[in-house]
């Protein structure tokens, strides 16, 4: 029998202590990854996070639901398309062009944007304009910290965001009958962008973002309908004028620039008074939608004096 001494064991073969100590969890994760197929193979590294006072204590949406039920039209219009059709999407290396009215316009490597900051875990409610909702533990930093790196100038009033365009890797961006004009663009007023609730997320459920959820970097604006939280961001531009936004271009009567969650202002075709929590099975039922998705105490002052029926 050959007994190898320590010198013959390569360091890459040694099981990390954390994995060893959490081996039951690791095994369960491996089994889950195998059974999930392509969606599970891309399981990401654990992130180092601190908790946030902004987090809700509501029950989390199961990760399985939050990573298989997505609107990300770059990969297709069906809810399962992003999980099923995003495996070709590559997110390393990744850089974000920050330009417009900033002191230090540049292409910033993703690491340079995120690593100066301590990542936080923020458990936010997510309300889709379609009338369903989730509770998701995001990982990221306040957008304000990232904008400060580039130095917004005094003339800047708005922030415009842009999603990557890669027809080779994003099946929804090629072929016949594409759902939207690309790139997907979104925008916020500068005070909305600088609000501490506004998050730049690079992870969820303690791990890096899966492709279908907007890897490697996405916006999360919890008091606005989900489509404002633009995914896979490659460009951030500070501007003086209100930037165009994708859903407003597609249907200005139905989707406004602000798109704050508001149970009193219905979508022209359906009610926004209630929502269906996703992940609770058939018996989950409906619950009342809250003004500003429950973040009124934090953000209502941003809209003081505005008619929210006009500025929908």
């Amino acid at each position, binding site marked *: 029998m050959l007994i190898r001494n320590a010198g013959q064991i390569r360091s890459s073969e040694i099981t990390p202590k954390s994995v060893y100590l959490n081996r039951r969890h690791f095994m369960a994760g491996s089994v889950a990854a195998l059974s999930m197929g392509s969606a599970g193979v891309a399981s990401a590294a654990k992130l180092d996070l601190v908790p946030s006072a902004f987090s809700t204590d509501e029950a989390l949406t199961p990760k399985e639901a939050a990573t298989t039920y997505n609107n990300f039209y770059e990969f297709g219009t069906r809810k399962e398309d992003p999980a099923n059709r995003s495996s070709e999407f590559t997110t390393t290396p990744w850089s974000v062009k920050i330009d417009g009215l900033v002191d230090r316009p540049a292409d910033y490597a993703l690491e340079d944007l995120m690593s100066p900051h301590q990542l936080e875990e923020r458990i936010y409610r997510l309300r889709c304009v379609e009338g369903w909702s989730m509770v998701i533990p995001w990982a990221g930093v306040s957008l304000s910290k990232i904008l400060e790196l580039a130095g917004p100038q005094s003339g800047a009033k708005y922030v415009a965001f842009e999603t990557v365009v890669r027809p080779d890797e994003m099946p929804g961006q090629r072929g016949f009958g594409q*759902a939207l004009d690309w790139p997907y663009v979104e925008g916020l007023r500068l005070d909305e962008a600088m609000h501490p609730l506004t998050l730049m997320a690079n992870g969820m459920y303690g791990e890096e973002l899966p492709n279908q959820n907007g890897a490697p970097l996405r916006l999360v604006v919890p008091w606005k309908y989900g489509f404002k939280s633009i995914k896979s961001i490659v460009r951030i531009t500070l501007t003086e004028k209100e930037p165009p936004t994708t859903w407003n271009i597609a249907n200005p009567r139905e989707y406004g620039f602000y798109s704050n969650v508001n149970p009193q202002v219905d979508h022209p075709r359906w009610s926004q008074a209630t929502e269906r929590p996703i992940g609770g099975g058939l018996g989950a039922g409906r619950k009342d939608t809250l003004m500003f998705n429950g973040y009124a105490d934090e953000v209502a002052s941003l809209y003081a004096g505005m008619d929210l029926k006009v500025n929908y």
Partner: protein
Amino acid sequence: MLQSLSPLVRRVPVWTVYVLGLAPGVWVWYAAFNNKLGADPLAALEHETGIWALRFLIAALAVTPLLRLLKLNLIKFRRAFGLLGFYYALMHLVAWVWLDRGLLWSAIWAEIIKRPYITIGMAAFAVLVPLAVTSNNLAVRRIQAATWKRIHWWAYPATLLGAVHFILVVKRWPPEPMIYLGIVVALLAWRAWKPVKMRLAKPA
């Protein structure tokens, strides 16, 4: 063209169409209650029952063009197609009223009145009810042929309303509801054009 299939069609008993036709409905209800429909089982249940209603209504409307254009005779299945379309529309309505809206009747009524896509969907269902009620041998015997035909002409507007209802629940213009609407419009156009052609063909 497809005449060669006719002996096969003759040998298939109608009840097999009901059994096969109801299979997806049985499956989707079972799957919905046993957490096999993904993250949003209710949306999947509503979508599947609605889409099967539309498919069977389209199948019923396609029977005559298939006979005229392709010489494929499916007439003995037409009642089954139509009734299956109604059964799925009923399942779709039950899913919405019961599981989606929790039997809150006043809120349900308010939605029917206020939301055009629901108004249109309800109208489609309401139109189908008299068609379903008269889709049996007794009714066919009791009701005059001309009257019966006039009642069942309403399958066209009902199916069109169903296809429009489908388009109105989606954002943008995804291909699936567009394809269904296209098929229904084509069937309607063929139906509208046929009498004109027959009149033109008649000697003066």
